[in-house]
């Protein structure tokens, strides 16, 4: 956190064909967007295991972007549809954990849509900024003052 302002930590899973190329295209076009999202390149949005998303959130990320080719344009025919099927269930699960579904976003970004990539990253950054830090462990069971915490570390006996 800088100057006391909360800077969301975002992880992005970008498919290699459309969205990663789209993000590159944003770079080639010198479009400016917030630096909060750090991209991870996967071959296809279908490769994005919801476990990764949960892992990222649990490890300290405040939000996650999954981006793939537009429906019908998937380099792998319909890998993106698989991602699309997983997404609502994942959101529902996160909701049950008390996590705002807005923190996880699935977007179709083509290789030509550098502008869209920049916009999506900006939007997600602002959305998450408004939601505040995730604090997975605190979130899943908010702390109350004076309550003894269970110890997570293995006791040294």
């Amino acid at each position, binding site marked *: 956190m*800088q100057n006391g302002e909360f800077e969301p930590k975002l992880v992005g899973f970008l498919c290699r064909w459309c969205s990663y190329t789209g993000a590159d295209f*944003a*770079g080639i076009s010198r479009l*400016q*967007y917030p630096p909060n999202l750090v991209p991870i390149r996967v071959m296809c949005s279908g490769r994005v295991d919801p476990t990764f998303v949960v892992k990222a959130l649990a490890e*300290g*990320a405040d939000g996650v972007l999954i981006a793939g080719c537009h429906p019908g344009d998937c380099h792998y025919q319909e*890998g993106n549809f698989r991602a699309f099927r997983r997404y609502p269930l994942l959101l529902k699960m996160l909701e049950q954990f008390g996590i705002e579904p807005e923190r996880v976003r699935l977007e179709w970004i083509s290789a030509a849509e550098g502008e869209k990539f920049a916009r999506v990253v900006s939007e997600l950054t602002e959305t998450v900024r408004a939601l505040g830090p995730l604090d997975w462990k605190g979130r899943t069971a908010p702390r109350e003052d004076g309550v003894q915490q269970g110890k997570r570390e293995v006791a040294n006996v």
Partner: protein
Amino acid sequence: MSEKIGVYLCHCGTNISQTVDIAEVARFAETLPNVAVVREYKYMCSNPGQEMIKKDIRELGLDRVVVSSCSPLLHEETFRAACDDAGLNRFLFQMSNVREQCSWVHSDRKKATEKAKKLVAAAVMRVAKHEPLEVRKVPVRNETLIIGGGIAGIEAALKIAESGKKVYLVERDSTIGGHMAKFDKTFPTLDCAACILTPKMVQVADHPNVELYTYSEVEEVSGYVGNFKVKVRKRPRYVDVVKCTACGECVEVCPIEFKNEFDENMSTRKAIFRAFPQAVPNAFLIDKKGKAPCRAECPAGVHAQGYIALIAQRRYADAFDLIMSDLPLPSVCGRVCYHPCEERCERGSLDEPVAINTLKRFASDWAAENGVEPAPRKRTKEGKVAVVGGGPAGLACANELSKRGYAVTVFEANEKPGGMLRYAIPEYRLPASVLDRDIERLEKLGIEIRTSSPVDDPEALLREGYGGVFLALGAQKSSSMGIEGEDKEGVMGMLEFLRAAKEKKLTCIGWKVAVVGGGNSAMDAARTAVRLGAESVQVLYRRSRAEMPAHDWEVEEAEREGVLFKFLVSPVAVLGDGKAEKVKCVRMRLGEPDESGRRRPEPIEGSEFTLDADLIVMAIGQQTDIAGGMEKLKRSKWGTIEADPVTLETNLKGVFAGGDAVTGAATVVEAFAAGKRAAESLDRYLSGKDLREGRDKEIPVAPSPSTEGVKKEPRVREPVIPSIDRVGGFREITGTIAEEDAVREALRCLRCGGCSECMECVKKCEPEAIIHDQLEETVEIEVGTIIVATGYRLFDSSRIPQYGYGRFPDVYNGLEFERLCHAGGPTGGKILTSKGEKPEAIAILHCVGSRDENYLDYCSRVCCMYSLKFAHLAKEKTGAKVYNFYIDIRAFGKGYEEFYKRLLNEDIYFIRGKASEVTAVPEYPEEEGKLVVVCEDTLLGINRRVPVDMVILSAGMEPAEGADELTRMLSLSCTYGGFFMEKHPKLAPVDTPTDGIFLAGACQGPKDIPDAVSQGAAAAAGALSLMDKGVFVLEPVTADRVEELCSGCKVCIANCPYSAIEFDAEKNVSVVVKELCKGCGTCVASCPSGAAFQENFADDQIVNEIEGILLAAKGA
């Protein structure tokens, strides 16, 4: 094991270092686990940069490398190769993208540096989990598929073919040449497009290494670089390209005209046509939308649309000839057919169906009146055939076989041929003279008919030397009801009754007649009884009116003639003393539907009643009555002959059977159909061909034609004698229509099939190149590389309503104007207004659709130049005042600016300002009768109104139709406007992100001819370099399974988009078929038990990457 990771931070000149504090990233990287060395350099991708990495690998024993620089899409390969060089497996390398996705997109130096740290940490963490991988090499086939035969495709094809490799050139149109073939002149040199293009077209077509598929489309592409499998759908041309000599004789006789697409619909062409005289392949083709629905519906497949088209052209003799080739007895058919064709006629959905049968009768009667005989038949075949039975089925078979050149003898048991037509169809529907006339014609054509010649043993005929026998014995016996008193005098079968009436052996004067049955023959019997003088005629039918099988119009006519109907009654006994006096009937009610779907009539108990009747005609059906000697023939349980439904073969070799004797009583046209089917079988049988192969495989039915703009018009009515005049005798009820009515009616035809199949072209074509029953064909080819050159389509100017395109006839788009200028175009190269006048003033509007955020954002690049070309041509040809309305003039190519300068000296007006409107509403007297272009002249700063006679819209370019389908088929991506995306806009403009697929020409973006040609050549070079190398290295990203962990749950199988996973039931595990796996990793994500993994994208690698990012984030 502890890894030794080297981290290399590139400055990329100042591209990265200006935003990212590399020294800080370096300090941070040193703290990351397993990092042995961190170095920075100005240009890591340069030789010294790479050498630095190689040296460290060798000297420091690095076993993992991370380079933080630009996008891996750009230089991943460079650094992998460097690792390779230094003896480190190339996949023990990871790249982090701090340029495209960091320094270029962020300006806050501190924040960008933080992000760079995360990116580096992610890569360092990830690379620790990398494992050495083997690349897979696949062979590259030596063939190329080129999609699109425009100038770019042609150029690519020639380059590759010249190098000795095979090219499949697939073109959707009937000719190659693309848009360029339509052009008159080309800018800036003004040389004639045809002169420079057509030699190349011919060269391609003649090249031994080029296989041309015109009028064809790529349907499916599978496989991968080096080994694509392609399905090409060849639409039928209906003309053999090899045999066709392009003489054009066929065009003369073709009765069907369509708008000529090649002339941008400004002229017409025939249904048989070629796009333009220099088309390649230079062969005609037939525009057939499919089988006309009328013909499809006709059991005998009569070419109705064909004779209608000929009648419309007043070519009655040709029409008659066509009918004769389909039917043995045209005048008969024109009277008695129940014409199912008309039910299906598409015109019916607009107003009323075309009176198809009436037109057939007209042509046949016209021929008879004018003594026109069909084309004489030549005996061309050796065999002779015996037909047993001279009814419609037998005669149809005889006619068809004689047409095919066989000698045919018809054996008829009765004293006269005609079968049921002669004995069962009443005179008022079919005068005997008409039947005789038709039969005599057949005899004149060389068919021998032996009457009074019953045949007992078909095999005896075979022994006598007939090559084959067709049995068309008919159904000669009326069915009986089997009720009490049926044997009394005064009870007759329908057939006996009708025959007696026809032979004038019977009158019914003063009788009360009861006809039992509800079919068409019951109507015939009833109406005949009326004419024979019956006092009353009652039809007894056991169901209700709705279930009556008789045609509605037959029932109506009978009612009009005084026939009474009693529905829901059934006779149970004939009463009378030796002779019928009364019929005892029972009332019926309708119960549950039976297997025919009609509700089954059930008697109501106690509802019996009696009717007076002197004559009871049983019209409840017919049965076959097969003479002795035919015992060897296999019969069905209904007593009909058993024959194969496709071939009509019976159990006796060489003996075929069809018609009522096989199917039970049916219609005349169905009998004709059976005869023709038998003829086909006999022809095959006699010439030793397979009886089944390819049979009944027919061209699909044409889709519904557009009825847009077709005026509603009632159909012609046949002249009919009033019912009052009918009952007194057997005069034919209907008459033949007049010639003018016939022509008018024929013109109502919507020409669903496109080509009418009138067969006139077949008659004219000496090389016998026409194949009307050609079918669509799918060929499969295998290629190593693919070049996409699908070009563009012109922006549809009617999308900008204020320019009036489509509303004002004198507003043309660019291609239309090209055709107007072209010597081969609709005006022979004269620039004329729609009134046929020379224009005095012409406006050329630039940027129509292009550079317009409402339509196409981009510049279409060619419009300025072609506008200048038009201006020059218009000036040259008409001397008119020419106004160019432009935004900017973009004359960027070689010689273009010079051309522009030349134009400036040609007395042409240039008005800088985008036209806002083209209007025909005058505001000033000089604008009367003119088109007025309204615009703001931005140089003068005033609004202007320029009256002109002709407006040319220089419309922009859009991707060709079907480009989006191709996008999916080839896994391509699109950039702005839907043009295909190149791998790199500058450095790889003809490559695509999909290996082995290249782009050429305007499909990649708007471009002019020189650019398209250059790209064609460049794409060819790309494809050639791949094919010459012969192998392609695939990135190892395939998925696999740890067998020990796979539970065989099959979840991954449904997740795989490629069906690349199979289930091994024996081991109870899922198995990845490596050849099919494309490496998306979807199955890996889906594997519930973690048994699946993906090379270079393993779970732990990605998880480490996540951890790296968040570890760095924590540190921040």
